[in-house]
């Protein structure tokens, strides 16, 4: 493509991200599997960057998984979302940010539906009033939480204790960035860089010292795809999609994977174990896998947080070889200690993929 064309597309896909005062909602998958990532997100925004970010225990799921599995109709799902907006309105906020890419896609879809069909919005307002006696204003700005870290990437970098650099060679680490499909593939104008040049994670990784790998299946789905995974008969398809990505990135020897989607993080981490069990193949060095992180976990690492406070012990693929490569200090004996310093348990190690 000619350069002018690229520049034009790029400028069309820039997104306005307000600086402060956000209403925050969590992700179902992350709360359960990687809860420390969300805690770290709030900690960095509040304590490192001094931002005002509000959350309420009254918020619920967005209904995304049930909606994409066709267990609930769109009207129900939009009413759930309307209730979240009502909580935001009640709290006096106008900027809405969500931790989940599925939710982000759904909020974008709902707002777009209401924009195109105001009668649907009216119906949903009526549903919400009848069911919860609540009213709402639509958010002025909607952002995925990775948009916020993208915006503040250089501020985080300025405070960083570590860089994404190999401490022995001084070379930047080779980073695979994986962006959830629902971030910008459905509504390109809603994501930083659109669907063609999504830059949200690449921007962070570069700012924190890493080098992005551009491999053939870079934009391929991680394979989760709701019904592909949740319907057991389709599960092999889900696994095969991740496999296709790993096979494609393997020749570039990635050091790490960063994702912004809860499902992608979960499956790219866990499927490496399943692939190893089925084929005896591992993709990292010396029999290990390629560690997979959320952007908050990576930010936390660069800021010098304790890896076990970031919840990295809940990952399937061992993170220690990467920590050693960067030179991050950690205490291996504290890996499975609970908050009171008591050993919670030590997991059973798999046979075919090396763990620490």
């Amino acid at each position, binding site marked *: 493509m000619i350069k002018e064309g690229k520049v034009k597309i790029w400028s069309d896909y820039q997104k306005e991200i307000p600086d402060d005062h956000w209403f925050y909602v969590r992700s179902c998958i992350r709360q359960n599997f990687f809860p420390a990532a969300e805690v770290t997100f709030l900690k960095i925004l509040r304590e490192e960057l001094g931002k005002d970010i509000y959350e309420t225990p009254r918020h619920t799921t967005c209904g995304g998984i049930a909606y994409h599995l066709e267990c609930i109709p769109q009207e129900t799902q939009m009413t759930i979302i309307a209730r979240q907006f009502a909580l935001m309105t009640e709290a006096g906020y106008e900027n809405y940010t969500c931790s989940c890419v599925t939710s982000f896609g759904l909020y974008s879809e709902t707002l777009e539906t209401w924009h195109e069909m105001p009668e649907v919005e009216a119906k949903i307002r009526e549903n919400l009033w009848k069911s919860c006696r609540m009213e709402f204003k639509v958010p002025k700005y909607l952002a995925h939480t990775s948009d916020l870290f993208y915006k503040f990437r250089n501020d985080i970098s300025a405070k960083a204790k570590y860089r994404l650099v190999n401490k022995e060679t001084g070379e930047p680490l080779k980073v695979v960035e994986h962006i959830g499909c629902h971030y910008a593939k459905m509504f390109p104008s809603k994501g930083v860089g659109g669907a063609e040049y999504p830059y949200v994670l690449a921007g962070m990784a570069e700012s924190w010292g890493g080098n992005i790998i551009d491999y*053939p*299946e870079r934009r391929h789905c991680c394979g989760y795809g709701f019904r592909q995974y949740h319907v*057991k*008969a389709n*599960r*092999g*398809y889900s*696994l*095969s999609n991740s*496999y*296709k990505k790993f*096979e*494609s990135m393997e020749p570039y020897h990635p050091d790490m994977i960063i994702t912004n989607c809860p499902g992608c993080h979960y499956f790219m981490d866990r499927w490496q174990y*399943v*692939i190893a*069990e*089925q*084929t005896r193949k591992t993709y990292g060095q010396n029999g290990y896998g390629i560690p997979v992180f959320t952007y908050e976990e990576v930010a936390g690492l660069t800021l010098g947080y304790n890896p076990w406070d970031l919840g990295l012990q809940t990952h399937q693929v061992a993170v220690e070889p990467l920590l050693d490569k960067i030179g991050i200090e950690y205490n291996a004996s504290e890996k499975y200690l609970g908050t009171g310093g008591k050993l919670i348990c030590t997991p059973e190690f798999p046979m075919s993929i090396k763990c620490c």
Partner: protein
Amino acid sequence: MDFGYSLSKSSTMKIENLENSKFKALAKLEPDATKCIGCGCCTASCSAGVFADMSLRQILLSLQRDCQDKYLPMLQNCMLCGKCMLVCPRGINTRHLILSICKIYGIEQ
């Protein structure tokens, strides 16, 4: 370990390694061959497809990916009725395209 589901081979292909000289010849004769978006409207509306195997969408994809051997015999089921031409959103002259595929790939209609 048996998880109750299995892994399929990666379907990634290197386009630069494909032997597609015939497809190039087809595209030269019939530039419409590269316009198809694989929507499947032709297949959904095909009367022959109800009774026998006929899927123009699958055939076109297989030609582009150089894995056509399994799909080419489908062409013999086409009745050349032209219904697919009426529904194609890309305005492809599908009947003419089908005849050209037969000519280049040596299929008797």
